[in-house]
């Protein structure tokens, strides 16, 4: 007798999922795109996600996005070069992006890497190259443990209070490929942090381990059920559990098992851990974890460090903060030329040894392949070769001796990837958008680059405001984490002069820190070409109306939505937006001939397309 699963996705997962997908994937790759039976496309594309492959949107059939998970954002020496070489050889699309060229790598808000335009037929060669260099796409997507995030300078930070990197690495090694945890009701996002800044963003993860002290021992407090997607943002809720680093695996595995057993497989919209925590409450989650999933007595929570968090805390680089770099400025020297950075790791900062790390701004997380390869060379020349990725879509070159800092900082590549970017460049995050993603409603990455460029040229931040985050997400999936930005932008549509145009909802005052809060959505459907003007006016009005040195977040907290909406004042300016048309209805928004029918997809497995405009 067969058992009918509650949804098609669960049915497919019950048939073939996890490791065993690989054999089928390789077989399809060997035989070519056309070998996937027409009536099995949905099933296989859903399964391929477990191996990091997403079928691209309509108009781009037969092309895939490939995600490489880099635990805690650590790219070991040589690995960035491998990523660059893979992107160079296999991620060249049929048309160029006007801002980034024909091939590039995207650094994501979960410290992973995404490549686009990947052909199924190339997957075996790509996997060979990645895996022989210690990289993998396994579980980068799909319903299982995703890439584990954390403080990107874990193990390097001079002021880290818990050595979190071995914990994150152990969780990755334990639960990546573990059949007991490979088929969960939905994705399972984990953050492990040991620093004082709160930069692991644990509050927006399904499971967060955050530094805490108990009875003189350092370890982690456990929080569960955070997440931003689908207009249902939740902050992770404290479970009143303290774990030592040695207990982290057992408790994390217990919670993953609890989610596996009790998460909602009937309805994928309701399947995330945040909804289970909503339904049960943290107390019941703790009781069930204790009774059914761990075999030792759980300790109550220790004393956390949340009152010291500075990352995205809405206060700027506050006096007395426990800067990752706080020795640097005091010592003078080159690091003092790049003050701040405690919140986002940009700039020059001392490590726990005698070396320094240098955080570089990558606009919207996208780097062309030539720049990737150049950065890999520079990391090797001036540092250990290691490069790390941050949750703000930026990169960090670690292990640079003080004697090499000046020469490294003088490299021409750093003109484009600056250690001291303007606040608007530094604060920019954008998701994939309609370039490749079908859930998105608007174009995002190129637009955010243009926004930041215009704001840098035309707008000054009010006095005392040194960080200002603008996150642009194409839809409510919230991949750019818009709800935790000073200015949150979310894709919508509106009509302007009767024509449907791309637009953005505007939210204000979101952020993390000791008391995280989600943005208030105060303006709806502002035509995209009026958004830079709206931000300019908002900042001017904020400067005029703020009281007693209010921070921007305090200013928003202290005013009602109606008042805030009046301060936005959208208007056209000198900013121009080439993506106002319906980018979703193009095969590729930047192609010269962009109609759906003009694209080359699907491309037969035995041929490669020529440039669409050749």
């Amino acid at each position, binding site marked *: 007798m067969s058992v009918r*699963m509650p949804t098609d*996705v669960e049915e497919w997962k019950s048939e073939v999922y996890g490791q065993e997908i690989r054999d089928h994937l390789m077989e399809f790759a060997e035989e070519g795109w056309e070998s996937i039976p027409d009536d099995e496309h949905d099933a296989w594309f859903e399964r391929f*996600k477990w191996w990091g492959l997403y079928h691209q949107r309509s108009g781009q059939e037969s092309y895939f996005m490939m995600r490489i998970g880099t635990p805690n954002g650590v790219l070991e020496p040589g690995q960035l070069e491998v990523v660059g070489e893979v992107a160079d050889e296999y991620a060249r699309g049929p048309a160029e992006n006007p801002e980034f060229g024909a091939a590039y790598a995207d650094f994501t808000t979960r410290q992973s890497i995404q490549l686009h335009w990947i052909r199924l037929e190339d997957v075996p060669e790509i996997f060979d190259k990645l895996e022989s260099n210690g990289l993998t796409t396994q579980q980068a997507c799909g319903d299982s443990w995703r890439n584990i995030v954390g403080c990107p300078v874990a193990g390097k930070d001079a002021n880290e209070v818990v050595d979190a990197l071995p914990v994150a690495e152990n969780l990755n090694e334990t639960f990546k490929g573990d059949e007991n945890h490979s088929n969960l009701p939905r994705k399972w996002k984990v953050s492990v942090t040991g620093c004082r800044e709160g930069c692991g963003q644990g509050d927006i993860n399904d499971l967060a381990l955050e530094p805490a002290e108990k009875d003189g021992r350092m370890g982690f407090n456990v929080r569960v059920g955070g997440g931003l997607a689908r207009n249902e943002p939740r902050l992770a809720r404290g479970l009143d559990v303290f774990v030592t680093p040695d207990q982290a695996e057992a408790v994390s595995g217990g919670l993953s098992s609890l989610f596996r057993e009790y998460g909602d497989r009937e309805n994928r919209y309701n399947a995330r851990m945040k909804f289970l925590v909503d339904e049960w409450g943290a107390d019941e989650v703790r009781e069930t974890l204790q009774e059914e999933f761990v075999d030792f007595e759980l300790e109550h929570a220790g004393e956390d460090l949340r009152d010291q968090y500075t990352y995205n805390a809405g206060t700027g680089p506050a006096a007395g903060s426990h800067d990752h770099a706080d020795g640097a400025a005091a010592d003078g020297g080159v690091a003092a030329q790049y003050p701040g950075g405690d919140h986002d790791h940009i700039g020059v900062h001392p490590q726990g040894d005698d070396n320094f790390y240098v955080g570089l701004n990558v606009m919207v997380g996208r780097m062309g392949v030539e720049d990737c390869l150049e950065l890999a060379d520079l990391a090797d020349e001036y540092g250990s070769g290691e490069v790390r990725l941050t949750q703000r879509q930026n990169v960090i070159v670690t292990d640079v001796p003080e004697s090499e800092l000046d020469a490294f900082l003088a490299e021409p590549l750093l003109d484009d990837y600056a250690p001291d970017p303007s606040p608007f460049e530094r604060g920019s995050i954008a*998701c994939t958008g309609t370039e490749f993603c*079908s859930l998105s*409603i608007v174009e995002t990455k190129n637009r955010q680059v243009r926004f930041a460029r215009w704001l840098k040229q035309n707008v000054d931040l009010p006095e005392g405001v040194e960080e200002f985050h603008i996150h642009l997400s194409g839809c*409510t999936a919230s991949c750019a984490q818009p709800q935790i930005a000073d200015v949150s932008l979310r894709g*919508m549509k509106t009509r302007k002069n009767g024509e449907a145009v791309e637009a953005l909802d505007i939210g204000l005052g979101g952020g993390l820190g000791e008391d995280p809060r989600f943005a208030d959505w105060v303006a709806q459907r502002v035509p995209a070409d009026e958004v830079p003007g709206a931000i300019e006016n908002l900042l001017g009005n904020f400067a005029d109306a703020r009281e007693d040195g209010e921070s921007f977040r305090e200013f928003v907290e202290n005013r009602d939505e109606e008042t805030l909406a009046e301060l936005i004042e959208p208007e056209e300016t000198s900013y121009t937006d080439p993506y106002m048309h319906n980018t979703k209805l193009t095969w590729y928004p930047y192609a010269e001939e962009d109609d759906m029918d003009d694209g080359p997809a699907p491309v037969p497995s035995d041929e490669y397309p020529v440039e669409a405009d050749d």
Partner: protein
Amino acid sequence: MRGVTAALRVLDDGAWLSVSDSRVVGVGELWRLRGFCECEQADFVLEGFTETGVDGRTVEVRAYGTCIVCNEAGPTDWLPVGRLVDTDTPRARDGERGVFHALANSAPAAGAGSRGATDVPANGAGSSENP
């Protein structure tokens, strides 16, 4: 075509409607709806599909989104989005394989009484890339 099985699915976080493994309708477009809000005709941004089914030969979806005229946001009633032809099967839902025959997929559906008429865009969809 009789006896051919059709499958209706909403996939990828509600990004698109699949009919027999083809992406037939995606999110992100403006739809003209009646009965969604107080407007005589809502100008509705469809942000996500939640479920699909059939009523007779009419393929339907439920979705969520926002009327850009009055700002009403939320879920819709069943909306017709296309028609199956030559079918003798009454209904299917995500998770079931209805016995259908063929699909006239991207044609604007006929009005369906109080559910209102839809102006269905002819684009398809793909995968969301939530990291």
